[in-house]
């Protein structure tokens, strides 16, 4: 199967966004039909008898089909735009680095003959500063290793995040009295989605910027090296050292020796670093002028400086560049596509289209065709479910527990997710029993390969008590397993599994989005159309 690229993820997110813009019953039905057709026409024919469809393969096929349809209409997809923009940015960053590095080198290496160039200044400006930046990066990276999520790991991000959050909260508190509930929910939902995407893709969308930075740095160092060498070859440049501190030549020699450790094994003698005599001979003492300085000593510094730039500037950046490129590839290869939008897409693809519309008795009407479709689809959802190999722990609120028979919920889950029911738990009896359930889950953990389905009446407003229970549930089971909020409508005389009103679905979806967890999402337990 083809490798995943950042542009694929961008296009996937773009298509998900477009699908999510309107979630009316008609739109939902259209999405169901479209995605089911993609599955039947493009995924199923590639499967062997009894073979389970692969999650990544299904998503890739869906993406290809959607792209083909879009490009047929000559639409430019954001992934493609990103790719071309990013290629240009890479070149631009290298060139900018080269020019700036070269320019900086040229302006520094101007020797008028009255005083040698101070190697300490060269080292401070071009080498130590870069080493400092690298050290900072290393500290951040080590800090990150201790934390799970990238976005919340960087102390800088956290500081900015905390400040912004406090500003936002203060603004929200002030605005909440003026803002309507709908605008407030929408704003919280958008914030949640941003956090959610950060969790879903982690460093994936950070790496391209990181790569650009490395390219700039590589360009800069290259420019600096080339200019330094060019000046050394074409001009007579004298390097010396001076300091108000009473540094003696031996100390400088020892420092230089230590700095040159990375390359001293590679090149030997005076090429690796100046000798003590050369250091002594290149010491600038203002009151004595420069006439006493040795020419040979003044010219002895440049290899050391070039090696410093190469080993402390250029090579680490090259290493980071390769590391970022490899990380990106590995990260993309490891994406499991288990987040809400993917789950919903796979559900649409594997759910049979059921129609109960009447048709004329004579001839094969559409109803007959649809029933064939349904038969063909039988078992696919189950197969896909098995491919995930996950079962479902169902949580049913106390209010509807009695009306929700085991068989009914079992068949609904089987039909919708193709998964087996691991257990059915009664929740919301009272605060104590809820706390007990959560404590149990925390202690024992979920059985392996188990997700959660929380049945929720969508007409009930998502009050804080419900939202907090879901948050606490996530804390108890830890990251990983999906928490699906299975929405149902108002109870009917014979069943509690009734369709959900659009307005209620929207409210719940916004509220769940606001949690900012990619694996907590809403879905209808009952198809809205017949």
């Amino acid at each position, binding site marked *: 199967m083809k490798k995943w690229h950042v542009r694929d993820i961008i296009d996937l997110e773009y298509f998900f966004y477009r699908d999510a813009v309107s979630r009316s019953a008609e739109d939902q039905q259209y999405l169901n039909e479209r995605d089911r057709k993609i599955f039947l026409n493009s995924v199923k024919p590639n499967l062997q008898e009894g073979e389970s469809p692969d999650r990544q393969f299904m998503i890739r096929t869906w993406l290809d089909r959607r792209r083909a349809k879009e490009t047929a209409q000559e639409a430019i997809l954001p992934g493609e735009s990103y790719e071309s923009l990013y290629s240009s940015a890479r070149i631009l960053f290298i060139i900018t680095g080269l020019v700036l590095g070269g320019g900086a080198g040229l302006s520094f290496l101007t020797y008028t003959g009255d005083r040698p160039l101070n190697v300490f200044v060269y080292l401070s400006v071009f080498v130590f500063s870069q080493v400092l930046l690298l050290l900072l990066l290393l500290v951040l990276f080590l800090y990150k290793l201790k934390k799970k999520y990238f976005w919340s790991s960087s102390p800088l991000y956290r500081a900015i995040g905390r400040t912004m959050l406090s500003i936002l909260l203060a603004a929200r508190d002030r605005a909440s009295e003026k803002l309507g509930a709908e605008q407030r929910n929408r704003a919280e939902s958008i914030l949640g989605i941003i956090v959610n995407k950060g969790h879903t893709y982690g460093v994936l969308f950070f790496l391209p910027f990181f790569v650009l930075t490395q390219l700039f740095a590589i360009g800069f160092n290259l420019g600096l090296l080339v200019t330094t060498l060019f000046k050394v070859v074409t001009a007579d440049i004298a390097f010396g050292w001076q300091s108000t501190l009473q540094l003696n030549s031996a100390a400088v020699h020892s420092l230089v020796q230590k700095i040159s450790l990375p390359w001293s094994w590679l090149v030997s003698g005076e090429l690796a670093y100046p000798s003590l005599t050369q250091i002594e001979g290149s010491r600038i003492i203002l009151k004595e002028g420069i006439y006493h300085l040795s020419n040979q000593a003044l010219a002895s510094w440049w290899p050391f400086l070039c090696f410093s730039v190469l080993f402390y500037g250029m090579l680490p950046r090259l290493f980071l560049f390769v590391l970022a490129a490899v990380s990106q590839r590995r990260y993309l290869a490891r994406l499991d596509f288990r987040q809400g939008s993917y789950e919903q897409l796979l559900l649409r693809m594997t759910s049979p289209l059921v129609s109960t519309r009447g048709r004329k008795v004579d001839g094969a009407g559409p109803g007959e065709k649809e029933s064939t479709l349904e038969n063909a689809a039988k078992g696919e959802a189950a197969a896909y479910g098995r491919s995930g190999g996950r079962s479902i722990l169902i949580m049913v609120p106390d209010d509807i527990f009695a009306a929700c028979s085991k068989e009914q919920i079992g068949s609904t889950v089987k039909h919708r997710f193709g998964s087996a029911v691991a257990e059915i738990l009664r929740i919301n009896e009272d605060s104590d029993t809820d706390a007990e359930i959560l404590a149990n889950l925390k202690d024992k953990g979920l059985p392996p390969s188990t997700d959660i389905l929380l049945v929720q009446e969508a007409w009930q407003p998502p*009050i*804080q008590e419900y939202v907090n229970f879901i948050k606490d549930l996530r804390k108890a089971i830890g990251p990983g397993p999906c928490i699906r909020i299975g929405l149902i409508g108002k109870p009917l005389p014979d069943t509690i599994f009734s369709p959900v009103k659009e307005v209620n679905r929207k409210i719940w979806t916004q509220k769940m989005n606001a949690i900012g967890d990619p694996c907590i999402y809403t879905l209808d337990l009952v198809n809205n159309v017949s």
Partner: protein
Amino acid sequence: MFPDTIPQFAIVGHPNEGKSSVLSTLAEDDSVRISATPGETVVCQEFPVVIDGREIIRFIDTPGFQNPRKVLHQLQDLRDSTDNIIGAFREKNIVNPEFRGDCELLLPITQGAGIIYVVDGSRPVRSVDRAEMEILRLTGLPRMAIINSKDATTDFLEQWKEEFRKCFNVFRVFNAHTANYAQRIDLLESLKNIDPDWQATLDTVITAFIKDWAQRNLTSAGIITDMLQECISCKIARNARDSRDMDRMKAEMLAAYEKKIKKIESRAHHKMRSLFKHNIFNYDLPSRSILHEDLFSESTWKFLGLSRKQQIAAAGLGGVGIAVALDAATFGTSFGIFAALGGLAGATWAALSSKGLAQTKILGMSLGGHEIQVGPVKNIQFLYILLDRSLIYYSHISNWAHGRRDYNADRMAGERDSTGSGFVAQWDSRARSICSAFFKEATKNNGGNNAGVEQQLKDFLMGQLQKISHSEHVKMM
């Protein structure tokens, strides 16, 4: 309880049950923010009832319960340690962001406010509702429950009533979207029963409300009578210099006349709208109602006097119109007097070749002299049309609940229902003679100034407006 302070009533309940709608309707305030999204109200808002500059009672809108079961749990734990459990709960949780909404809604309760618990009766009772009812019971404050059904489902009403019997002194059905003046007064009457201490105050409020409503009706009757007087006596006169311009001039004058009448009518309606405290809602008389034949449609204009010759013709036809209308009313036609009149008059004119007559009119104007005058109206139907329009407008404006915000639904219903009859069609001969006397007086050359006739019409209209106010269901046309 705090007998020395102003009685307060906190409207509490689960989010999105219509608390703000109930309050908006009760307080006749359409500035209260209402939406279908739960959590619209985040802070308490007071709605004082001020009579003669003095605040008598106060309603308080509150946010919905966010953690009913947790709050109840804490309150139950606090029962052993204090009598003021609500105060203690607030003290404990005031800085906890999780309970921010709950602390806010409990604030008026700590101040001894009476409780009006609002629920949506079209949904089943859930454990969170039971927890809320138990919290309210634990407060020990006088309380009543209101079933404000959001849709027509009645399957769960009994369930709710059964629950209410356990926790509330009084409960009643009050639909914030359809409640009119009479139902508002009924609700206030019920409120008296939750605490005997507040009966006298609430009696004052109810009496003031009734007086205020009567005053509004009296003012409305005056507005309508003045508008009729002004419209009926309205005329436009111009000098015709050239007989060749007659057609153009006629069209211009008709347009100007139409504009003037509409302006007078609209001004009067606007006054009524302000009187009933509507800032957002406005009723656009539907284009396809019984007044589908607009005041200035061709058939209506055929009755408007223009010249001596035309006045004679118009007067004759006017007589036919009334006769036909009375016939129609007697036989109880569903189209109503003016629809029948409009249709039949149109048919009559078509039979008489209205085009030919219209041309005669123009000739009449041309031959009649140099001054052309449009109006005053010589046909009493004009008065009936204006009256019916005003009464329809009044019925919508006075009965439109301030908590109802689906303004388009009313417009759409109006467009759908084009066959509804008006009010005037149901009037008896006494009513007609009052109108006739007023019309006669108003069309007199000197404008008419018989105060007795005018007062008679005002009194009659006042009675009609009161009747509309108390009608159980006003059909939205």
